[in-house]
Each structure stands twice: as C-alpha cells, then as structure tokens.
C-alpha cells in the first residue's frame, strides 16, 4: 500500500457517496466513550486472550484441508498433477470427521498436521472454511460483471495482509488501525485492564493487526524485556553519565521523528520494568521449552521458531495478574508461505511447525489453567491457486483456517467448503476461491467471544451488516 498521498486519507474520511453507497458503510468516528457505553452488560472480569497466528505469504488452504471423498479427491489430485508433491496419497492424509456435514463429503488434513489433527479430535480445534477478504458477499457472475464492490488489490501481499489485519469499509486496508488494535481500543475505553500497556503484544515486530488509535502494541522477543545498559549502573564508570542518559532519553524534542522515536524508547523503559518481573522464565523454572520439530524434508530435529514465539506468549500470559490485564491480544507470525516455488517441501516444513507449535501452545494453556480462556486463530494474506505452476502455486483468495482452544466448539467445520475443481461456482479462475465467509465474520465471531457487544463489533467492522442478519459463525459455541 503506497502512502504517497495524504489526500487518500482524506478520501476515506469524507467519502460516502459512491455508486455502491449501499455497500460502503462509512467509518464514522464514534467517540470511544460511546463505544464503551455499548458494552455487554457483564463486566469483563475474567481473563481471555486472542492469539493471531499469521501465516505470512499466503497459505495454500487447498493442500491444508483436503476433501477426501472420491469425487473431490480425484478433482484435487488432477488439478495438482502439474507439480510433483502437491497431491498426496490418500493413505498419507490425516482424517478428520467434522460433526456437521458438508454435503456428505469426507475430509482430512495435510500429512504434516498431526498436532492439529489431535487438537481437532479432542474437540479443541475447528476448521473455518473458505474465508477471505470481502466487502459484501460476491458471486462469480457479480464479480465478472463488476456489479459488486471488491477489496482492492486482491492478489497483492501487501494489500491483502493489510486487509486481513485492518478491515476498512472501502475494502482497502484501513489506514493504520488493525482490528486487533480496534478491539484493544474498546477494551481500553471500558477500562478492563489496569495497565493498557500490555493489552497488545507482538512477537514479530510491529503488526498492523495490533495497531490501535489509543492503544499501542509492545513487541517482546523470547529474550524477554531487556533493560538499557548504563541507566541503572554507572555509564563508563560515571554516575553523572547515567543520569545524563536518562535525561537525554526523555528530553523535549521538536523534530517529529526525534519526538516519536523517544516515545518508543520511553514506552520500552516502562514496559521493561513491569514485564521483567511479571513474565515467567523460559524452561523448567517457568514455561517449558518447546520441543524441536521433525523437519519432514531433512528428517532432522530442528528448532521451531513459531513454538518459541508461542512460548513467549505463554510466559506473558502466565504473568497476567502482575500485568493487571484481563484481556490480551497477541500476534505471532510464521512464514514464508508464499510457495510459488518448492511448495512440496516448504509447505510440509511450515505445516509441521504449525501443527507442533499449536499442540505445544494448547498444552501450555491447559497446564496453566487457562485452557478455555485462550483462543488461537490462523490468518493469512490469502489462499493460493488450485492449479500449479511447475513446482508451486500462485496467489489465491479464500482459504481455510483453524481456531484452537478449549472454548472452541471443536471437531467441526464452519462455513462452506467449496466444490473442488475447475470452473466451480466459487472458482474465480485457476482455483482462486471466492470466499464464502468474510474475514469480518471470522473476526467478529472472535471479538464477540472476547467480550465485545454487537454494537461495538459493527463499529469496528463497518461492513459486518452486509453479511446477512446473523453474520456470526458458530465456532465459539
């Protein structure tokens, strides 16, 4: 998303009349006090957390959740015949049996997803099928005749990552407010957390998803919060140096870049002081270290970075009482799923990490006594094509996702799994799926579990009402 022009921002503020006026709900800026007033009647005094597991690059949903009834499976195998390793022997797949029928078809998970199969069978994970960015429901003929508004730049990583993480009314990405950040803003306005600094936490740099208007995100690595040397102890043997350093790091700055740089430094100092004692240790004295995963390509035990990120999340959750938080939103990232090339190996490797990491994380949540209070969910820029290039697939649109946790109404599939094959109703071409569930619905369902009211959800997701009278999905029970 190119931010060359300020006027685009002003466009979003003022635009309300378009030929598609009925579909665009203007993102009117309700004061956050009013948002607080829309709260559910029950106070949010229990602890709940959402963990966004972002599969960066566009995860191939087709190869993640596979329909295994003879008709579907042969269509899948045929479509993937152009590249070695992108279709699977039926015996290698991991069967799952969703409680709700999808037109009598059977399903299985990618061979590398043992961990997710276990979670699914234990009723602690569910599949949400064919989910993607939409402004309003769209059919193939509507798309082809240009009679329905569509999200902008559909197959661009940058824009679709932003659209997943920051839903805006015009289908582009919101300027810079992610829906996680927007949810955090609501939480902040209701004064649910006594310390708002620890509401939004990322282990993967700054995430658009967690960017809010009032709330800021912290990023924490597995090393935990590190203090600035030379502030607590003499600087080069000189305590005047230490006090000078502290003054300099809080000086008045006029230049905006210097000023905002300093804001980040100050936030870091404050966060470190609290987090250092609150966050549990990694290892036997705190949250056990995750096991390595078995790399399916090399057959070697390899460090699982996603699991380490989730361990960091678990360590922070462990300190929730000291942090004074009842509601937290986390962001972790795994990538790159952009498998134009070498998909057979790369996808297997990444899914192994994903399955192992989620199984590990859920076990930690249960051990910590918050197994029903933390919900992890996958998200991704987009799915991929069903047909392949010579050894991979290209950018798609709708994809299948997982929600994991004790509160999930698991062992089931929600949304509508598409008919598999070319030229089907949901196929925009080359097997790019037109989503039948929107990110708004997916996210709105999670937000409702998190404690937001209908009114608050409709404000954060301006197009929510475009998806029927009952847009919520049932995966949170």
């Amino acid at each position: 998303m190119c931010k060359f022009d300020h006027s685009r921002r002003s466009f979003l503020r003022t635009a309300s009349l378009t030929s598609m006026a009925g579909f665009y709900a203007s993102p009117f800026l309700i004061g956050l006090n009013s948002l607080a007033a829309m709260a559910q009647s029950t106070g949010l005094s229990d602890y709940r957390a959402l963990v966004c597991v972002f599969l960066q690059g566009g995860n191939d949903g087709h190869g993640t959740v596979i329909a295994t009834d003879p008709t579907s499976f042969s269509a899948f195998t045929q479509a993937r015949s152009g590249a070695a390793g992108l279709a699977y022997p039926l015996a290698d797949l991991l069967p799952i049996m969703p409680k709700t029928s999808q037109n009598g078809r059977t399903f299985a998970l990618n061979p590398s997803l043992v961990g997710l199969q276990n979670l699914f069978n234990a009723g602690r994970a569910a599949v949400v099928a064919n989910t993607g960015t939409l402004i309003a429901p769209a059919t193939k003929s509507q798309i082809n005749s240009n009679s329905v508004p569509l999200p902008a730049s559909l197959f661009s990583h940058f824009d679709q990552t932003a659209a997943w993480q920051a839903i805006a009314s015009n289908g582009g990405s919101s300027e810079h407010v992610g829906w996680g950040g927007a949810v955090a803003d609501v939480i902040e306005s209701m004064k649910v957390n006594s310390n708002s600094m620890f509401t939004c936490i990322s282990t993967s740099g700054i995430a658009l998803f967690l960017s809010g208007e009032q709330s800021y995100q912290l990023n924490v690595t597995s090393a935990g919060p590190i203090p600035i040397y030379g502030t607590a102890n003499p600087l080069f043997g000189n305590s005047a140096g230490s006090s000078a350093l502290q003054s300099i790091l809080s000086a008045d700055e006029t230049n905006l870049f210097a000023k905002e740089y300093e804001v980040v430094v100050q936030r870091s100092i404050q966060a470190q002081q609290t987090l250092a004692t609150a966050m549990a240790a990694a290892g036997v004295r705190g949250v056990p270290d995750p096991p390595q995963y078995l790399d399916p390509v090399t057959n070697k035990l390899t460090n699982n970075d996603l699991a380490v990120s989730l361990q960091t999340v678990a360590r922070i959750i462990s300190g929730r009482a000291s942090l004074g938080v009842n509601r937290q939103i986390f962001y972790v990232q795994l990538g790159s799923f952009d498998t134009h090339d070498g998909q057979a190996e790369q996808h297997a490797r990444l899914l192994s990490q994903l399955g192992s990491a989620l199984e590990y994380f859920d076990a930690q949540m249960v051990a910590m006594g918050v197994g029903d209070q933390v919900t992890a969910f996958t998200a991704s820029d987009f799915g991929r094509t069903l047909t392949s290039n010579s050894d991979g697939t290209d950018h798609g649109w709708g994809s299948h996702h997982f929600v994991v946790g004790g509160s999930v109404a698991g062992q089931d599939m929600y949304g509508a799994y598409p008919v598999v094959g070319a030229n089907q109703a949901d196929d925009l071409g080359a097997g790019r799926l037109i989503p039948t569930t929107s990110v708004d619905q997916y996210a709105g369902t999670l937000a409702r579990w998190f404690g937001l009211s209908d009114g608050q959800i409709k404000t954060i997701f301006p197009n929510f009402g475009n998806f029927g009278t009952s847009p919520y999905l049932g995966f949170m029970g």
Partner: protein
Amino acid sequence: MQARPERLFSFKLPALALSIAAAWFMSGCSSITIGDPSSFTAISAPVNSLRVNETAQLGTHTQFDGTKLAFYVNGVPGGDAKFGTIDSAGIYTAPTIVPIPNSVTITSASVAHPDYPKGTVTLAIWNPIPVVNALTPSGFPEGDTQVAVTGSKFVYGAKVMWDGKAVDTTYVSSTHLEAIIPAANPGTFPLLVSNPDPGSANSKTVQVQVGPGQVELKLQAYNGSDVRVRNSLNLGLDVTGTINKAVTLTVNGISGGNSTIGTATSNSDGSITYHAPPVVPTPNNVVTLTATSVDNPKISVSQNISVLNPIPVLTSATPLSMNPGPPATTIVLTGSDFINGAQVLMNGAAVSTTFNSGTQLTASISPSEPGNLDLQVLNPSPGPATSADLIGTVNGTPPVPIVSPQDAARFLDQATFGATDADIHHLSLIGYQPWLNEQFAAPQSLLTPGVEQALIVNTQPACASGDVKCNAAMFLENNQGQDYPENAFWQQSLTAPDQLRQRVAYSLHEMLVISMTSTGVMNMPRGAAHYYDTLAADAFGNFRQLLQDVTLNPMMGQWLAMQGNDKGNANTDPDENYAREVMQLFTIGLYQLNDDGTQKLDGTGKPIPTYSNTDVMGLAKVFTGFSWNVPGNTSDSAWSDCCMYVGPGVGEDLLPMQSYPSHHSTAQKAFLGVTIPSSGSPDPNGDLKIALDTLFNHPNLPAFFSKQMIQHLVTSNPSPGYVSRVAAVFKDNGLGVRGDLKAVVTAILMDTEARDTVAGASNPQFGKVREALLRYTHWARAFTAQSRTGGYWIGSTEDPIWGLGQMTLRSPTVFNWFAPGYVPPGTTIEQAGMTGPEFQMTNVSSVVGYLNYMQTAVSSDSTNGFDIFSSYAAEMNIAGNPGALVDRVNLLLMSGQMDSTLYSQILSAVSAVPVPAGDQNAINAALAARVRTAVFLTLASPSYCAQY
C-alpha cells in the same frame, strides 16, 4: 448381602470386568440399607481410574433387585465420544482421548422411578501405556544421535527416558517419537518411553547397544579466521567419539608452529589458540592449522588462517604545522606498526611516502589551503587499516570554505555511510558538485573478489579448480558462507573510498530486494555479493540497464522464482512472482502517480490502480524460459540443474540468466496496454525487451523511483515540488536521456530542499529516522574504527535485541525492513498525515537493542569487545577540554546541530569525569571515559536517531 459366586457365572461379562465385579462383591456390601431408594440406583466403580479405550463394568444392584438403570456420563445419556460411553449393562468404555478436565462422572437413574436419587461414581481417565516397537537406528556409536522411536499409544508430552533420564522428545504422532540421545560412552543402556500424566506410565524397557565412537574432530572458527600479527585467534574444537579428547597441533605441518608462521596451543577448556607471528609470513600469508586426534592419529581437521598486517599507530609528525605548498614540505611521521608499503593520507588522499622503518615514515606533502590538516597512515594489504587522525595546521588564513564544515558533514550524512574528518575537510574546500564528480569518477569497490577469496581460504579440504562438484558446494550450496558477504559489506561500507556509489547501492538494494533468508540465495554467498556489486555498478548508469541486470540476475531469479520459470500447459501456469513484484515494488507501484508523487484520483476521488491481475498473468508469460547460464549449453540439464560451470571467477551464480527458447511461452502476452501476439517461434529476449521497455517508459516510474530514493537519502516526506523536480530529471537529464541515475542522484542531493539546513532544522516535519545500521556505520567512520582481527567480524546485526535490528541482504521479505508508505500508528506523524518508513523497524525491542549494541561498540578497544573498535586518538587529544570534545563530536555525528540542552547535558556529564594527575594509565582511562561518554550520549539521543 451374601456373595453368590455361582450366580456371577451366568452373566456374560468381559473377563476383566468379571474379575473386577467379583472382587467388588467379595469385598462386602456398601453401607446402604435395603429399602432405601438410593440402594436401587447405587453404582460403584471397580477402579478409580481407567486408561483410554479401556472398559469397566460398574457394580450395580440390578442383579439383586431387578432395577433397570439408565446411565449418564457427565450428564449425557449413554455418554459420548468425548467423555466415554456406557451401555445399558453398565459397561463403561473410556474415550479415545483424555478429556480436559480428565474426570468423568457417571450417574445412574432408575428407569421406573426417575425420582429416586441418582447413583454416582467418578472416574479419572488416564493416558494409555505406551508401547515401544523399534528404534531407528537400533544401535549407534557414542555421541549425539537422532533416534526415531516407533510404537504405539504415544501421547503428546511423552518422554524418551535414556539411562533413567528424560531426553528432550519430539512427538511426531501416536506411533512416532524423535529424540537426540546423548550417549557419552559405549555400553548397553536402557531406553523406555514414559507417557505423561494423567496416569503417567512407562513402556517396557529396551536395551540399546552403544558402540565405540568413530573419533570426529570439528574446528569452529567462531571468531573468524583472520588475525593480525602478534594477536591471538581462538578456535573451538569439538571432539566426539572418544574419551581421550587430546589433539596434537601443527602449523603448516610443523609441530606447534614457529615464530615465522605462528604457533598453536591447546587450552584447558578444549579450545585452541593460534598466536600470530610478529610479521606477516611470506610469500603466503595464509597458514594451515591442523589438529590430529591422539586417540586416532588417522583423524585430523584443518583450518586456514589469514595473517594480516597490524593497525598502524600514528603518534606524531614533524613538522605538524607548515606553509601551504608548493614547495612541498617533507614531514617525518613517527609511530609504530608501519609496514613497508604504508601510505600517508593527507585529508584522505594518499601522498608520496618513504618507508624508513616500522616507526618512521617520511612524506612529501603539498597542502594547498591553510587550515586544519588531517593526517593518517594507511597500511597495505593484507588487512589494510588506517591509523587514527593526527590533526596538523597549514599556516595562513584559511580560505572561506565553499561549504561550511557543518553543511559538509550534513551532506556527507546523506551521501555516504557517515562523515569523516578528512571528508568534511575536503568537501568544504572543493564544494558539492566537485565532490560529486570525484565520486562519480572513483573506481568501484567490489565485494565479490574478497568473498570468493574468503570462501576458498575457509573451505577445507581445498577444491581443485577443475572440480566442478567441489566448487559448486563451495559457492552455490553453501549456507554456512553467509558471514563472508556480510563482513565484506561492513568492510566496504566503513572504508571504501567510493562512498557515494556504495551508499546509493545500499538504498537500491532496499528497493530491489533479495535476501539471504531464502534458501536459494542463502546457499550462494558469492552470488549474493555479486548481486550487490551489480547494483553498485549500475548506480550511476541508466535505470533501464539496472532493470535489465536485476531481472536477469540469478540471485533475483532464485528469490522471485524467475529462474526456471516454465511456460504453462494445461495443468500449470507460469509463476507470477517476479511479474507482480517487478511492477509493484521495482518500477510502477500499485497506483497511478502524478509526477509530484501524489496519487491520481478518478472521478469519484479514488486512486487508480496501475495494473490488474490480468496484467500480472500476461507479464508472467514473458518471464518464462530463463535459467542458469552455462555458456554454450541450453540442454534440459542446464535448464533445471545447477551446477555445471563453477570455479573461481566463474559460475552460474555470477552470470546473467540465459534464455531457453523451448521453455518460453509463445502464447499471447497482454500487459499494461501492450500485446505481444502469440507466435510460432519463441523469442524470449525480444519479449523481455518489450516488457522491460514498457515498464521503463511507464509514466509512473520517474515519480515512483525518485520519491523512494529521496526517502532513503534525505527525507521521508518530500514536498511534491521536490519530487517533481527530481522526477523531471529522471524523465530527461537535460540531454534527452531518460533514466540517467547519475543525474537523478545529483538532483536529489543538490535540491534546495535537501541542502537548506536552516529550513530543515526549523521544520519539525522534515527529515527521517536514521536507519540503525547507518547510525552504526556513521559512528565507525567518524571515529576511524578499525577491525582488530582484520576480518571485519561483525556478521549479521539483524537481531533486534542483540544487534541493530536489521542487516544488509537479510530482510525477512521482499518488502525490506520498512515499506515506503509506512505510517507509525498513534503518533504525531500519523496525525500530520505523514509517513515514517523507518519507524516500521523501530519498536520497544529494537530501540533497546540499538542502545546496548552501540554502548558495547563505543566501549570496545584493541583488546576487548567487538572486533570493530576505535582508539579515539584525535578525541583523546582534546578530551582534557570538555567543550572542545563535545564540539568535535557534535560536528562529526550531528553536523553541528546539537541543541543547547543536549549540548550542556553532555558537557556536564563529560566534565564530571575527573582527570587525575600523575599516572599516565589512569589519565588515559579517564580521558577515554570522557570520550566514550560524549560519543555514546550523542548516539543515544533521540535527536541523533533522527536525521534532518
């Protein structure tokens, strides 16, 4: 209640349940009285816990009183898959997976009298007992071995127990675990699998044979393999497969080495230290250190070590003040560690030098202008290094500089990796355009030769030059070689004379991204270095050439999948990765732009996309049929396999990809309003030319490229006017040429918006966050930092906690470490409608990482800390005068723009360090503390972290 054993046998019960039920009856009755309604529904369990899938027959009174019971599990009639099921006879079957929580409550109700109180029992559901079938490998030698344990009923959290101790275990599935077994000694050892709670249980034990190990030696050059004369280099040594870890050491085959080639000794912790000789060995400065196992002398391992010249120390010069020349003044420079071939640098430029001895040089210098004179000594290769600066004086009234030192420093901050004393002096006397002209004419420094050399020296055993397989492994399948391009980058950015070209190349590589984080590029360290050199080579040429060279570069081909991209068929389409990114990121961006960089809007006020997915698909067909360049060979193996043509100086990683017509699409290709008709004969080069010409001539390119380069070099939010002026030069350099990069760079740096210091300093919206990496190079150049080992052993600084949070050629995605349009949320910058790209990598972790990294860097010295250190000689000379010290640091680091508050805070902190009298060591320590305080406090200040 009496037991009636004979009646039991009429029940058809599973044997286990039978015996459990029998046991219950034998043990006597419950305390319920006959006639109490509870007695009809009372149930009991023969056990307190049950493993998954097991069954238990509940004891009931049904056989005595005929009460028919209905059973519920956790309230569900008959139970369910999650909590277990129970049939009408009261046989409960535990579920397949332990539920959470793991206790189930079974209740019974009388069918006839539902109002009777319910009976209830609680059972704990336990994990199964694991079964071990096999180990692969089933036996192994001493050392660490990864073992697959297969069997059944493994539960997540199961642990492999080796010799009674739990080993880190990876759960792969219910039938497969993996673990790394640390078998320290040969023998027979017990192994079992233990399932976790609830109901933790062990499998049977398997006895495993561990054989004597094959001795294996491994040397770890964790401090690199370069060392300067007289210094020491520590190497790690791993010895496995034997209890006797002793080794004998030779250098160039001589036991222990000698004073000419250096010596090697073993340390008590098992590591090895190489002690470099006092003089670089000739004719070959590379020596071979070999460690041979005492236990098995057939096993040995070697490491090549490069011995490098010392860092010269310049103590004094006589005379230090002189008249301008001609005539030239002969000066005698005194110091130590001068090497024959050393050159004296006057204001950064070499002058005629005579080598008298290791402690004395004579130079004939003819400074043209009165004023300060910057003197340094540069020792020759191997391991060239400059001394710190000695400041002399040229008598007379200094000419009014064409550019003030402050403005010169500020310009150099934009145009180089950091201002130096010498450069400030030089530029201020000659002016901007002449400096630019010198830089345009300066020969290009290259990364590739040094990287190639380092790979060759550090590969053991060495490759014969004709051994393609060995050379391929060294250059194209070597993901251990990344340190070399990284360290070469540091050496080049810190010391290369063609600073402008290198700085522009750095910014180009942040737009035209490849990264060693992807497998293909990671394996090709020489290729990655060569890609960077290609950008630098084209930095002052034409954009059309740059676009061509990037498109056909094999590293880019690996990164964005153009290498080996095949024309489509019924089942496959060409890969679209390069087609999309070359438009989105490299040339035209997503939305149509005016020449001033603002977005064009349609009739309804919306931005206008530049391309659609159809354009991407059309363009993707053009980028088919290009792959490895094996001269004269377009066979199928050359197309798909690498590598056949690799050696020193040559290889598929270096040559631009070649075309393979049979793999090129002949279908119609429509993109950006251009249609290449379908044709009978494939024309990859012709189609490529049309595509690249179309992108080059696209109206978006001038503004798209110009604005981003301005953002990288000068300011994040250039005015539309600034962008227009530069875009106009891109379109036409004044001589009718489009895409003249030399002209564009000149336009960017010479524009009034870049040069107007006062306007920049007084406009809070002007400027940018300095990239952390550039803040580091800035420090290193300002204080003439040197590499202790000579290898510029910095590696990657991408870790946000322990490094700078970014590294050249290592960005995690094609979007670089920050995107041009990034807006930091919740900031005054956002409120002002501005962008702050470098804020995307500025977070609570990385700001701390930067401060801590710089503190260590600043305090490193010739014996401690990072490999790159400064002796701060020029600063030490004035540290007795805090004001002079802070002034100097202000000029070198902040172009004299320190505000008065910051200045006085630093001044006070510096002055608070007392300088004792008497002991010279104590005096030097105090002066050094003053210098470090001044330097670090400046680097730490948010004012410095921004650039305006």
